[in-house]
């Protein structure tokens, strides 16, 4: 697998900046005035108790939700409203908390679907599926096979994903996101519902993606052991507010975090 094309932002510089973002649904304030940044090349974890607004935050980043207030700057460009299509073509890929795959399609087709934006032949060529369209198909298929090798899912590539066990579905979903060759990869609870062995595999894939391809990763995870091992920096949300931001060690020692997780003595 070749590394994705690098954006012109150097490693360590800010790739995505969230400034004073607030999001509410009617009276429910899901996110309140949250600011943080994600630097190129890092693994950034977002943690917090249930209902803290973590998934809402990811949805804001990839354009499913438009926040009422605040600014989002991605690759130096500030946009008031970003549609999911813009996010995807700008280089943001994601996976979902409850796996969102194309259930009736094979693992291979699911991952190929991730290359939609990389393929350019028009409807005419697609219809006759000959010449340039076929050539393009073959070239992208090769890339996809690389991803399949990387994730060790060769044996299931012709299986409809609806039939696969949960752990493998998560892996296919990661494959589909990787097929987009993203600059920023958003992972929503990549290890939820997995056993120890599957978690270890998934952690390895995440680290490899980050190290070999230099992909910036933002992940939501509940397993504290995993979060502390994997991530470079952690942000903690509670009731839609940011209560801590720093390295795993700083966060672990933070009083507000401890009370949010364990409760405070009254």
């Amino acid at each position, binding site marked *: 697998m070749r590394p994705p094309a690098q954006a012109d932002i150097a490693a360590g510089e800010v790739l995505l900046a969230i400034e004073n973002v607030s999001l509410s649904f009617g009276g429910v304030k899901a996110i309140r005035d949250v600011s943080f940044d994600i630097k190129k090349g890092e693994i950034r974890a977002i943690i917090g108790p249930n209902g803290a607004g973590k998934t809402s935050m990811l949805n804001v980043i990839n354009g499913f939700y438009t926040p009422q207030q605040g600014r989002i700057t991605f690759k130096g460009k500030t946009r008031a409203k970003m549609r999911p299509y813009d996010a995807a073509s700008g280089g943001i890929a994601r996976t979902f908390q409850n796996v969102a795959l194309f259930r009736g*399609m094979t693992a291979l087709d699911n991952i190929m679907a991730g290359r939609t934006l990389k393929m350019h032949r028009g409807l005419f060529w697609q219809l006759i599926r000959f010449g340039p369209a076929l050539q393009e198909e073959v070239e992208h298929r090769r890339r996809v096979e690389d991803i399949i090798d990387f994730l060790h899912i060769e044996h299931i590539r012709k299986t409809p994903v609806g039939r696969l066990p949960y752990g493998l579905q998560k892996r296919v979903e990661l494959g589909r996101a990787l097929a987009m060759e993203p600059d920023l990869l958003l992972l929503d609870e990549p290890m939820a519902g997995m056993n120890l062995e599957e978690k270890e595999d998934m952690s390895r894939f995440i680290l490899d993606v980050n190290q070999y391809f230099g992909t910036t990763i933002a992940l939501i995870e509940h397993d504290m052991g995993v979060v502390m091992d994997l991530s470079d920096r952690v942000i903690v949300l509670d009731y839609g507010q940011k209560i801590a931001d720093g390295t795993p060690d700083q966060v672990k020692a933070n009083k507000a975090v401890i009370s949010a997780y364990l409760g405070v003595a009254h």
Partner: protein
Amino acid sequence: MEILYKIFVDPFVQMAGAPDLLIQTLWEGLVSGVLYALIALGFVLIFKASGVFNFAQGIMVVFAALTLVGLHAKGIPAFVALALTIVVMLVLAIAVERLMLRPLVNQPDIILFMATFGLTYFLIGLGELIFGGEPKVMIASELGLPKGAVEWKVFGGFVSFQKIDIAAAVIASIMVATLAVFFQKTRIGRALRAVADSHKAALSVGISLEQIWVIVWFAAGIVALATGIMWGARSDVSFALQTLALKALPVLILGGFTSIPGAIVGGVIIGVGEKLGEFYWGPLLGSGIESWLAYVIALVFLLFRPQGLFGERIIERI
């Protein structure tokens, strides 16, 4: 005893006794089957890409055929009229996406289904307003479709093949083959199936819902136009043609709602079954069995394969 003889023996004796007649019946069945398959294909396209049963497919057939005939009646040469009709179907697809589907994103399928009812009545009204309600003659010969029949001497008798039927079978086969490959093997085809499975996931990989819907409705429009030309050439172009859409229902049930090859195999089974049933068993029941036999055939298949012959297996992990 006599009734059993009439059901289980007599028809086969007749078949063996006059093989030329049997071949003729099979051929007629095959042709009407192919034409049913064309209508079913229009349904399958939209169902595959949006999970919506498009009630308006029948009226789209009529509307496309009326537009073609109407434009030609205004003095436009046949092939220019054909090209203009294709443009009209594209405009219709864009309008449907903008005005009907886009405001209804993420609504339950039943809402979209009801919207296609609305579209049906809108198109009936629009068609009558522009082209009038009286039946018209399809411009088959102007479009270069062959006339007359080929006769084949066989078993001491002869079988006659209408050339227009042969043309219909060929055109339908090409359309089905192209669409099957397109859906299975290309980027846009994959995107179409992806949209049908999950809007959310499709959006996250950068598939544009708007574009996909326009493509799929346009493709269904083209299929409707081909269906309209073929059916119109056999009878008249009138609003009565839209009831043909009902014939597609057993075909869809049999073939599976999501399968393009299923549409064609289902169409042929229904078409051939209908014609054989009517010709050999019909007199027993006082004829007229064509109107319900298709549904009975579909029911029998449904008993054994609830998802249809080629439908996607229903997979549910619990």
